[in-house]
């Protein structure tokens, strides 16, 4: 795992070591590069897409269901074809990517924040607080993600904000469990004891002493969970309970095209599907390798 010898002993900070180890794996680097390109495309999307899929005036229903590469009535070329409302798929996919990434990353980071808080609190205080929080975590994790998400969306209704909320509730428990188990180990270490002896405040001990030492496993879980959040959002939107079809996320685009799959108009659902899968696989490649790099057990 650690073949890098070019860096001299003196220069080796843990962060540098991790970065150089990460860069050793070509597949993971490829994943990272692809992911960065995807993020860049999503962020800059509005500047180069030929159409704004939110703007109905830019669409022509006469251009509906055109195959990839076809010309519109005005002479524009539809690179990836159009859907049944005459929406340019290329633009729609990039806007869909924006929404999917937004939902995945926002839900992911909020879930990390809440989960880490709860996990640290449970580990630090122990006792009853710990029991209550962990019971809740166990209870939630004993049910399948999709059931919990479905339950929440049946309660909350459709919409981007609701999906984000459902994803946070579905995922915080993973982080809480992950960080609690590391924090339990850290809590009994000497530096925490030393911090107690210095009479440092609780908050300071938890956040500036315990937290940084508990982060590596959380980072690994977070990368994988962002991919999962994107997948769950797509699934819910595909089922028709997530993001409404007027706001194209990758899942709702796929749902829109799915009905036409059997009649041979594959591009309406297959291209957004490819965008979705490439995103998920890229994030997973990064996450998978991060796990190896950050795992202290695999370290010399």
């Amino acid at each position, binding site marked *: 795992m650690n073949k890098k010898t070019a860096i001299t002993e003196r220069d080796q900070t843990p962060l540098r070591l991790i970065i150089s180890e990460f860069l050793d794996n070509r597949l993971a680097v490829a994943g990272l590069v692809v992911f960065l390109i995807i993020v860049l495309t999503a962020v800059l999307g509005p500047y180069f897409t030929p159409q704004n899929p939110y703007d109905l005036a830019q669409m022509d229903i006469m251009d509906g269901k055109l195959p990839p590469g076809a010309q519109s009535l005005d002479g524009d070329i539809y690179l990836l074809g159009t859907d049944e409302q005459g929406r340019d798929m290329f633009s729609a996919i990039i806007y869909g990517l924006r929404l999917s990434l937004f939902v995945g990353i926002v839900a992911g980071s909020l879930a990390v924040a809440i989960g880490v808080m709860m996990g640290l609190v449970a580990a630090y205080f122990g006792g009853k607080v710990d029991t209550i929080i962990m019971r809740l975590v166990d209870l939630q994790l004993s*049910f399948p993600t*999709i059931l919990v998400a479905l339950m929440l969306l049946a*309660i909350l209704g459709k919409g981007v904000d609701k999906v984000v909320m459902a994803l946070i509730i579905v995922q915080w428990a993973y982080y809480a469990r992950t960080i609690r188990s590391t924090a339990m180990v850290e809590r009994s270490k000497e530096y925490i004891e030393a911090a107690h002896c210095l009479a440092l405040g609780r908050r300071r001990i938890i956040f500036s002493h315990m937290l940084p030492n508990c982060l590596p496993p959380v980072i690994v879980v977070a990368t994988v969970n962002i991919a999962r959040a994107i*997948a769950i959002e797509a699934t819910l939107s595909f089922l028709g309970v997530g993001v409404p079809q007027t706001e194209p996320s990758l899942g709702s685009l796929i749902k829109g095209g799915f009905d036409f799959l059997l009649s041979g108009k594959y591009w309406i659902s297959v291209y957004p599907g490819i965008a979705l899968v490439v995103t998920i696989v890229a994030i997973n490649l990064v996450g998978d390798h991060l796990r190896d790099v950050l795992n202290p057990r695999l370290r010399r």
Partner: protein
Amino acid sequence: MSVYLIRRLLQASMVVFFMSAIVFSGIYIIGDPVDLLVSNEASPEELARATKALGLNKPFHEQYFVFLKNALRGDLGRSFVFGVSAVTLIIERMPATLELAVVGMIMALVIGIPLGMYAGLKPHKLSSRGIMAGSIFGFSLPHFWQGMMMILIFSVMLGWLPSSGRGDTVTVFGIQWSFLTWDGLRHILLPALNMALFKMSLIIRLTRAGVREAMLQDYVKFARAKGVSGMRIIWVHVFKNILIPIITVSGLEFGHMVAFAVVTETVFSWPGMGRLIIQSIEMLDRPVVVAYLMITVLFIIIVNLVVDVLYSIVDPRVRLQNLKG
């Protein structure tokens, strides 16, 4: 043992009660179903009558109390849309879902265990690496996408298998089954495979890890020293020992499979309870949504309970721990 059983049963019923409160109070908040069911031109009197008939004019806690009382008798209300008992509606569609889940589980086990054993016995072969890479895809790609690709490849491009419905069914014990007819079997193959892929990946990884660990154990070395044939070591000595975790996980995953059927059933238009719940959420058919959630939650809790108890019976080490704790 019985102390353990009683404690687990109590825990399980607590969870059921807790979930019923969440589900009911949650669903209670969503839109007023009366608006959807009564036509737009209905007069205020008609609206009031409909609200009263559905019991929606009572205060929240009263509604919940009535709900609980009825739930204990197996009555979760009438579907606003179909006008029949919500529980009956779910139960009618349950066999289709269970059939799908069982066939999927069998596929996952029958294909997953041999592949996992192969990958575990020959971890450095290219084919083993291929199996492991495939299992990563099985893990990380969304269910519905896998199903869609199956339809695209096997139904649209190759035209080998049908993409939707159950096909011909045979009625046995008053329930319709697809897997007993040739046409039904053709129909169930793709959706069951769709359900199986994820679990298959899990089982492959579990089996592989188990085999790699077991092969290093002393009992395997001893059997080899005794001159036991390689096949016998693998299928009798190793297999038996890796079976416990596989059975436990498969059991737990079976409950999850029934929930995940929502996705597969939507992709393949399989007329099970998963498709019903999606339609019911869309139509705000509150009693059916509540009934589905309660029945699925109950199902998963029962499966977890049975697996835990069986596990402690099969593995004496666990039993002793539980008795102490």
